[in-house]
């Protein structure tokens, strides 16, 4: 059907440092290809998913690349958004880290321990999944809500015993703090996938644009998967992390931008259910109603 009116020239994409669009932006191909199709791409950087969802809700971005939990929270809060695409996971690079000498060797050992996480992010979901897997109750650990840098200091000074997080932070902590991943996302089922969401109305009216974005994005991701060295160099510069940290993080990650499918939607639904059951969200949402399965 006839959509994508010719007047639209500029498209705003929200991203976070080190994510899929950061790579696309740095490589430069994406914007060039889009321009050929008559779109000027504006990349807007955000420091966290919540802020990006805020910008999306107020129509300040057209596409937002976020983690798995912010869209769920936003939907529960009544934001009208649509999932237009999914990214890869960080299932091997996210999880719960502990110091090697901490004596914590299994999930059960977490009982009674202080575990750092950041409220409203994947780490909260990750922890809930991990506790369930270990047969522990929600109150069997001490939940310590901290921002990234605060958590880093707290973890290093042993103010917390474990820390739910994801790459590249996990990689960094593993390498600098003599730590290990107690459990990763693959094992807990919190795969930490990224998604690309759009304001519902925009998504409805610009489906072919969305297809373009997926198409060109996927090309960049393919490039990323096959040019690790270049991606690593790029991220070292962008994130100001040391090379071995980035190497570790990039190696265990698969980049990708895919059309939405049932499996991805179900992953999100699980998050929604878990958060609702734990009282974190006070509204149940049905993810499939907010997905555009572009064909």
């Amino acid at each position, binding site marked *: 059907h006839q959509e994508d009116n010719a007047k639209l020239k500029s498209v705003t994409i929200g991203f976070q440092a080190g994510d899929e669009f950061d790579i696309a932006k740095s490589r430069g191909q994406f914007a060039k290809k889009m321009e050929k199709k008559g779109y000027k791409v504006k990349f807007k950087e955000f420091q966290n998913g*919540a802020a990006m*969802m*805020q910008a999306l*809700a*107020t129509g300040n971005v057209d596409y937002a690349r976020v983690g798995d939990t912010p869209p769920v*929270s*936003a939907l*529960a*809060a*009544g*934001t*009208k958004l649509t999932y237009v695409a999914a990214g890869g996971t960080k299932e091997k690079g996210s999880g719960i880290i502990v110091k090697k000498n901490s004596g914590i060797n299994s999930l059960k050992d977490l009982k009674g321990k202080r575990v*750092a996480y950041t*409220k*409203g*992010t994947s780490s909260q979901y990750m922890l809930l999944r991990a506790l369930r897997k270990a047969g522990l109750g929600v109150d069997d650990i001490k*939940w*310590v*809500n*901290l*921002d990234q*840098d*605060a958590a*880093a*200091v*707290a973890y290093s*000074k042993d*103010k*917390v015993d474990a820390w739910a997080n994801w790459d590249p932070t996990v990689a960094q902590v593993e390498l600098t703090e003599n730590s290990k991943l107690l459990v990763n996302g693959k094992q807990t089922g919190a795969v930490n996938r990224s998604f690309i969401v759009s304001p519902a109305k925009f998504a409805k009216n610009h489906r072919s644009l969305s297809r373009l974005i997926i198409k060109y994005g996927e090309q960049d991701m393919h490039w990323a998967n096959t040019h690790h060295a270049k991606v690593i160099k790029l991220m070292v510069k962008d994130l100001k992390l040391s090379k071995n940290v980035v190497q570790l993080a990039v190696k265990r990650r698969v980049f990708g931008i895919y059309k939405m499918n049932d499996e991805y939607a179900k992953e999100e639904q699980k998050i929604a259910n878990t958060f609702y059951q734990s009282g*974190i*969200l006070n509204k149940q949402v049905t993810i499939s109603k907010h997905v555009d399965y572009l064909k």
Partner: protein
Amino acid sequence: MSDASVLNKKKFSLQGIIPWIIPLAIILFWQLVVSIGWVSSSVLPSPLEVLKDGIDLTIKGELPQNMSISLYRATVGFVIGGGIGFVLGFINGLSKVARLTFDSTVQMLRNIPHLALIPLVILLMGIGEPAKIFLVAIGCMFPMYINTYHGITSVDHKIIEMGKAYGLNRSAMIRKIIFPAALPTILMGVRYALGVMWTTLIVAETISASSGIGYMSTNAEQFMDMKTIVLCILIYALLGKLSDFIAKNLEIIFLDWRG
């Protein structure tokens, strides 16, 4: 001031109403904006929704509990930080050597955003209650310092000289001349500090908090719970009004001589 005292009762009740006109106008405008659908209520909930949220949270006990823990942190932080700032300001105001030694450092430290200080605070104080109170104390310290210092260094040289000529010793000089003369400026510092007290809480309560009004506010932001976000903003505004009320009354009580 003097004309205020001759105002009759009728004018007085009007004086009580006028200050609320703009806040009310804002709320009405806001209700209108939401009602006519200029912004969707998921982006900006209407005042009524926010009120309902407030009532709900009060009934559930969440709001009173968060308020009281915040009040505790705020008060303790204010007392400690304000106290230190006052003492430091006093010493630096009185002693030239102290001033040379400390003032520059304080002026540098006060410029560091509380947000940026968090890692250092955790390093020094851990993640418990002391860390939160410490941050509030830091926040309250600076306005009290600056105003006390400024108040003391601006005391009219003539009356200090008079005090000297009447043989006041250092302590009497401070109690009877320097302190009362600096008090108006110091009370302005209290006014600032009372404001900062609340605004640092929102930062302090990102340190491993699970309660408090600042926690409530950042938590709502994470989950885009606009009703609670706006509710918190309103609560902050009302706390501001309360601080103003306290500051004004302190001025009325302690500065009655200014007529």
